[in-house]
């Protein structure tokens, strides 16, 4: 996994609540057995007409948001299915950070596994960022994970919380499986103990 570095980027406003995984990547695109290439179909049904032409009103089709790296979204982002294709599609498009008042649990976890940072903030602060994002491409925000800060284009600094272990993994680009395998002795010991207590499992 790539390390998460501090960056400044364009933020796109998507104030809609309950943006679900079927909106992020419709199921017709889940048939690939690769992890890459999903960005072309990110938000497919909201972004394109059936003939493949763009729907100009959709935020990521607007000239100023085509290279967005940050998404400021409405409540309960990523609800629905467990498909990791959702964060894969966002990542492939170039979105590294999503800010909302809340995220669905599985989507939230899946994002971290792909070097992306979902940030939960109170409504008032999301409103500030949403207003900043509305300004378009000249309003670049800076996301500093180490300091746990987002800086708006006006220089306002908003602090955010992040799980310490997840932060450590993102900053260092660590692979979860490798980390867990270092604890193999604990897993072996657990299996022996649980196998004796619950042999039918």
């Amino acid at each position: 996994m790539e390390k998460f570095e501090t960056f400044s980027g364009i933020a796109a406003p998507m104030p809609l609540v309950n943006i679900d995984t079927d909106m992020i990547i419709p199921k017709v695109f889940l048939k690939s057995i690769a992890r890459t290439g999903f960005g072309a179909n990110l938000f497919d049904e909201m972004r394109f007409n059936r003939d493949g032409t763009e729907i100009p009103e959709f935020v990521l089709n607007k000239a100023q948001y085509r290279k967005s790296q940050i998404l400021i979204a409405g409540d309960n982002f990523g609800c629905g299915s467990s498909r990791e294709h959702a964060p894969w599609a966002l990542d492939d498009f170039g979105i590294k950070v999503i800010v909302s008042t809340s995220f669905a649990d599985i989507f939230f976890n899946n994002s971290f596994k792909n070097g992306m940072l979902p940030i939960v903030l109170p409504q008032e602060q999301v409103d500030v960022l949403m207003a900043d994002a509305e300004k378009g491409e000249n309003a670049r925000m800076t996301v500093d994970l180490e300091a746990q800060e987002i800086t708006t284009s006006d220089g306002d600094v908003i602090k955010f919380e992040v799980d310490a272990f997840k932060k450590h993994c993102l900053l260092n680009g660590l692979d979860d499986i490798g980390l867990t395998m270092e604890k193999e002795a604990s897993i072996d010991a657990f299996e022996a103990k649980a196998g004796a207590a619950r042999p039918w499992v």
Partner: protein
Amino acid sequence: MSPKTLYDKIWDAHVAHEADDGTCLLYIDRHLVHEVTSAQAFEGLRMAGRKVRAPEKTIAVPDHNVPTTEGRDDPAQMTEESRIQVQALDTNAREFGVHYYPVSDVRQGIVHIVGPEQGWTLPGMTVVCGDSHTATHGAFGALAHGIGTSEVEHVLATQTLIQKKSKNMKVEITGKLKPGVTAKDITLAVIGETGTGGGTGYVIEYCGEAIRDLSMEGRMTVCNMAIEGGARAGLIAPDETTYAYVKGRPHAPKAGAFEQALEYWKTLFTDEGAHFDKVVTLKGEDIQPVVTWGTSPEDVLPITGVVPHPEDFEGGKVEAARRSIDYMGLTPGQKLTDIEIDTVFIGSCTNGRIEDFRAVAEVVKGKKIKDGMRAMIVPGSGLVRAQAEEEGLADIFREAGFEWRLAGCSMCLAMNPDQLSEGERCAATSNRNFEGRQGYKGRTHLVSPAMAAAAALTGKLTDIRELM
């Protein structure tokens, strides 16, 4: 010792390692696998030269892409991409040596129906699958939830998940249900109450007399949609109903071991005085047959209601409701029972079990579906199909005009050929009414099996109580 919830007990029994910050390695007893979310995980193992740590605890079955029409062994029934995905599961299951039910096996079906049916799911276990509706297995008092593909790979390699504990939430349904009200109405009514984000960060324990009175099939329906309320998992404490269901299933403990297991299972309940971080209580007798009007499972109303006005809501939901009503082609103030439908889908991991089909048969026996109606019944597994045929239900369905299909996820998410066309409107027993879920620009109203059956007969969303 301080009193514990059921969730606390299962969690504590599965922590293989705990770091200072509370991050745990949770041991996984059963890992269910299907074709859509596993190919990249197996490929990851292959590239790293890793093997599946516990193939004997890993169960694979193709379900999302498989056609549900006769003669589906003919590869021409699948698109090239679907075929590749199913073949990848076939290859991976055999190469890594996990339990496998291929399309040709009568036991094949939706992963969340096959697991319990085969006795893989047992009380007190941890169960995961790369599928959000893994919550279904919580009906057995198993801690069960969906995971992403990276986590699928993690479980395959290590048989553990990196987790932090969720909070405890109690959802109590007191008293008795009124006639015509089912497990599906309970679970939708709860989401209507809490919202789709209301369970975020929690594991729900469902309890109360109305839950106790449910069969295992009904309990699975309730837990299945815990995820639609945002919860990581839903749980129901095991009892005599659970033990009776489990006993004698192919992978349930056999004589001797069963008694030992039973002794343990009887400790799986929430202790008196245990702490819940959130409590929601509904009266069973207040719950009515419900339908969804919008494009979020929280858009729930009693069938006697009317389509709401966007202004009835607050905050971001105003715009979301406006968008939903427009997408669904409805008018605020319109009676729900005036909404005409052209398609009925009965099946899915929510309502694809034998009890669901008995409920449908009771409504449609000796009757005909409305002219021009496309109505499809898709069993959750090959064994459910066989049982329905043995009980004579399949004949009732065919005579009424339903298409009687082979097992799979089918039109719940429409990854196989079973899809809605643009503008078609469906009464569905599945779990999601998202935009495009059942097909591009298709419109979905979530209902119970009996309500779906009633709609098939009348051609409109219908109050089942009027047909009773």
